[in-house]
């Protein structure tokens, strides 16, 4: 719902009668219709956030979308106005100024955006604190091998399943010994590639308990589309007891329901 309201709020309707207004109205109607019908939610959605990184990026997205929509409308209105105007030499000075402004104003807007965007960058790519839990993920063809090697606990591996405690940062160590994959849980954070010969890392701060779905986001062969996994975020106490159970001997248990 927030999604829809933001969409509507950001779009300014113009009522100038012209040959392009049917097209414009159609376009805006389609946008709103799509947003209303589909919404933003879901367990694999970067717009329905449950992690700090995803939340920051989503905020940036909405601001840029709003600004972008406004800029698009302004440019189209200007173009339509120019096409309809009677013209003449007296418009030339204004036209020249328009060209200069067309360089200067975008430069200012872009610079502002650059500062904003760069400001967010260090926190997104930083390592987690040294005391944070580390989970190693190996990209296989076509599944995710998840290894927990934690102090005081027997190491164990999971397939396509990750459990995390709510409210604590975790550092993912990302590796592959076959092809390039990409680890992506949109509800929690941005993505990071698993590249043979390299060790990449991704820091995630899950904020809300729940089950989230991840996908492989770098084409990796035949079953790339099936290479999905689940991230289960639990309150700390439940996570700790799960951890203790995992390091015990294997037994048949129910699998995680999405």
């Amino acid at each position, binding site marked *: 719902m927030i999604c829809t309201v933001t969409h509507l709020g950001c779009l300014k309707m113009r009522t100038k009668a012209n040959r392009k207004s049917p*097209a414009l109205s159609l376009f805006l109607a*389609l*946008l709103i219709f799509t*947003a209303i019908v*589909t919404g*933003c*939610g*879901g367990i*694999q*959605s*970067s*717009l329905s956030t449950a992690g700090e990184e*995803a939340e*920051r990026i989503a905020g*940036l*997205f909405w601001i*840029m*979308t709003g600004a972008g929509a406004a800029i698009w409308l302004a*440019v*189209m209105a*200007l*173009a339509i106005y*120019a*096409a309809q*105007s009677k*013209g003449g030499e007296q*418009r*030339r000075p204004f*036209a020249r100024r*328009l*060209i200069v402004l*067309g*360089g200067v104003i*975008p*430069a200012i807007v*872009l610079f502002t*955006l*650059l500062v904003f*965007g760069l400001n967010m*960058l260090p926190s997104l*790519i930083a390592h987690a604190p040294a005391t944070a839990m580390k989970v190693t993920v190996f990209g296989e*063809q076509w599944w995710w091998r998840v290894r927990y090697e934690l102090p005081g606990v027997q190491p164990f591996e999971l397939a396509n399943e990750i459990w995390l405690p709510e409210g604590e940062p975790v550092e993912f160590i990302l590796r592959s010994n076959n092809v390039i994959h990409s680890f*992506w849980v*949109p509800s929690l*954070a*941005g*993505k*990071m*590639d698993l590249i*043979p*010969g*390299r060790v*990449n*890392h991704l820091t995630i701060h899950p904020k809300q308990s729940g089950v989230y779905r991840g*996908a492989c*986001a770098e*084409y990796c062969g*035949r079953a*790339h*589309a099936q290479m999905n996994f689940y991230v289960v975020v639990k309150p700390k106490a439940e996570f700790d007891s799960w951890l203790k159970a995992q390091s015990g001997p294997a037994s048949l248990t129910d699998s995680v329901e999405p």
Partner: protein
Amino acid sequence: MQHQDHEPLAESPPIELQRQQTERLLRAWAPAKGWRYWSEVNNSVVGQWYTGLTIFFLAYGGVLAALMRIQLSIPNNKFMTAETYNQVFTVHGSVMMFLFAIPIFEAFSIMFLPQMLGARDLPFPRLSAYGFWAFLMGGMTLCLSLFFNAAPSGGWFMYPPLTSKYEPGIGPDIWLLGFSFIEVAAIAASVELIIGILKSRPPGMRIHLIPLYCWYVLVAAAMILFAFPPLITGSMLLELERALNWPFFDVSRGGDPLLWQHLFWLFGHPEVYIVFLPSVALVAMIVPTFARTPIVGYSWIVLSAIGTGFISFGLWVHHMFTTGLPGITLALFSAASQAVAIPTGVQIFCFIATMLVGRVVNSLPMMFVFGALATFVIGGLTGVMVAVASFDFQAHDTYFIVAHLHSVLIGGSIFPFVGATYYFYPLVNGKKLSERLGRIVFWCLFIGFNVTFMPMHLTGLRGMPRRVYTYSEGLGLETLNLISSVGAAILVAGFAVFFWDLLRNKDQEPLSERNPWGAGTLEWLQEMPGKPWGVRSIPEIDSRYPLWDQANIVRDVDEGRFFMPDAEEGKREMLITSVIDAKPVQCLRIPGPSYIAFWAALFTGGAFILPTFKLYWAAAACAAIATGVILRWLWNGTAIIPEKERKYIGHGVEVPLYASGPDSVGWWAMLITMLAVITAFVSLLFGYLFYWTLDRDFPPPGMPGPGWFWPTLGTAMLMGSWALTNLVRKWNRQDDARLVYGGLGVSCLLAIAGGAAMIAGPYLNGMDPTQHVYAATIWLLVIWTAIHAGLGLIMNAYCIARRAFGRMTAKYDIDIHNVGLFWHFVAITAVATEIVLVVFPILK
């Protein structure tokens, strides 16, 4: 208005003279008939073939997209298997990027550029024909592979290790070798277009009077010279790993998959501007016509186009934001990627300014311009969004990017292209396309585009990655994908109507009136239908819009009152002018119909494509035959000594028929081609430096190197060959035959010995290229140098033969000039190889 150096003839020439001139022009320029039609090299004919073939590939790629959208319309669809879908999306992307988006501007330019410049043809007609045949061969090879289940399936950017170790079929090889062949042809077309724009303008068309389309094409063609070679080099590395197990991207032997990504995107990012700039160039020609006023901000546009082209080479890493690069890298490329929006925006505002000053006439081409603007600006804005690395972490490799790239490509390429087709069509055969059908096409494309791609922004952010053959239920992706698929159907309908309008029989249609849109630029001098010689006489111009500003120019051109109104010797001739001021400098005789370009393309194609099927001996044979064919082409068709020194072209101006050195178009062709070749070599050096700067063992301890002796000996000998060849140029001028033959002979020996010495380094020291990427890189560097020495050897031997048979003399010496120029680049290559082989290991 500037002063013309030469006014047109004050009086109309006698009718009988005009008739004779027209007859002679027709005899020289009439297209060949019957089967010989396919040996034609005239730009109008080759341009039509090229455009037609490109549009076929557009349709082919579009059908593949329609199939993809059918598969994705519902979750877990069984319409296509994963294997099929993976081949289909790879071929869709590859066909659209390599067989449509780039060739369409080359095809258009071959067809129309000479007319925009008041020229009769491009300077190297057989090169255009060669480009076409190469394009046909390479393109059909890729397209047909799909029917044999042998198409590549690694995505259009073919990342290793997936494509190096995990795709054992011939698909990737078809991609790597087939496209390298096409890229070479594209570079050839660029060479031709650059030289055409710089040196075959009408007298008086000074550098600031060039039509904007020509400026844009100049920038795009120059970008091709520097953008395509990194991909050619990268493709060579990947193919060597696949075929011979040389470990460029194999981590266990020192390689790195990221080198491919760097080389590919060094090509890939400028590529999209190479696609965009010539398309926006079409807009730059259409807007002034319908605004009834010269373009406002001409200089701003030119500077912005150059600026965009330049900056675009500094952005490539934004395709690699999620590979784990350091923050400073992300920040720099993020900033640059945003910055490129500024010159792009300036161009758009210049068009708006032109519409403001002018009085815009409602017309079909302008509708497409508006469609282009609306669509492209969306793409530009989402482009800025993903340039912000923080946001790209979510958007990268999702349908958000699919939405972005199609917005800029459809907005920045398809809409201008379709609009330009409606605009320029009368120049093709004198008829107009249907206004009514055109409007249907526009609305279907505009609505179809929005319905297909606008939802994809949301689809991507809601979690759908790229290149998935299906998706699960319950993620909220069903409705969005269904809407996109419905939109795709509307797009298909629009294109179907467009193709119908193009292909339908127009025999019963009336001819269009001359200059139907009332435009101001020279291509609209054309009569309806056009005559095979193009422009009747080559005008002197002094304005950007000669048809608006120069009184009676149409009559003057038609009556032969300007330059070169005749073909006295029955040959095809065009006027070469100086680069900046467009003063006449040469009357260039260009060839008529010839099959040689076809044979050259066939055998070069064999040399490139047969290795796909592991037929290495057959490929080597093709390479040898191709060399022979090209030598015959050069021998019979270039640097022909004319029957007289100078020719009178009218208005008291006599120009030479033969030029050598920097005055000759052939020398420029060699220079520009070598810029591309040296860029490929620099890309190889980039690879070496990439491994060298990574914190790895390069060279690995204990591995034998090439030593210092053999590389140094080899370099010294090649430098000797270079020096001698350039001395021979001087000796030839002095007509000292003994020194010429002696010098060339010794230089040939030095070339052979130098090449062999280079190879001796790694060979005699037992370097095994399959063992480690260091050995592979060294081997590749010396083989590259040796191949260049070999080419130099062939060229020097050619010069000996030319001199011996009297086709090269002291005065008529194009050949030795061009060969001397080639050797400059061999010298640079040899020295660079020496430094890398001998000096760098000491530094480490």
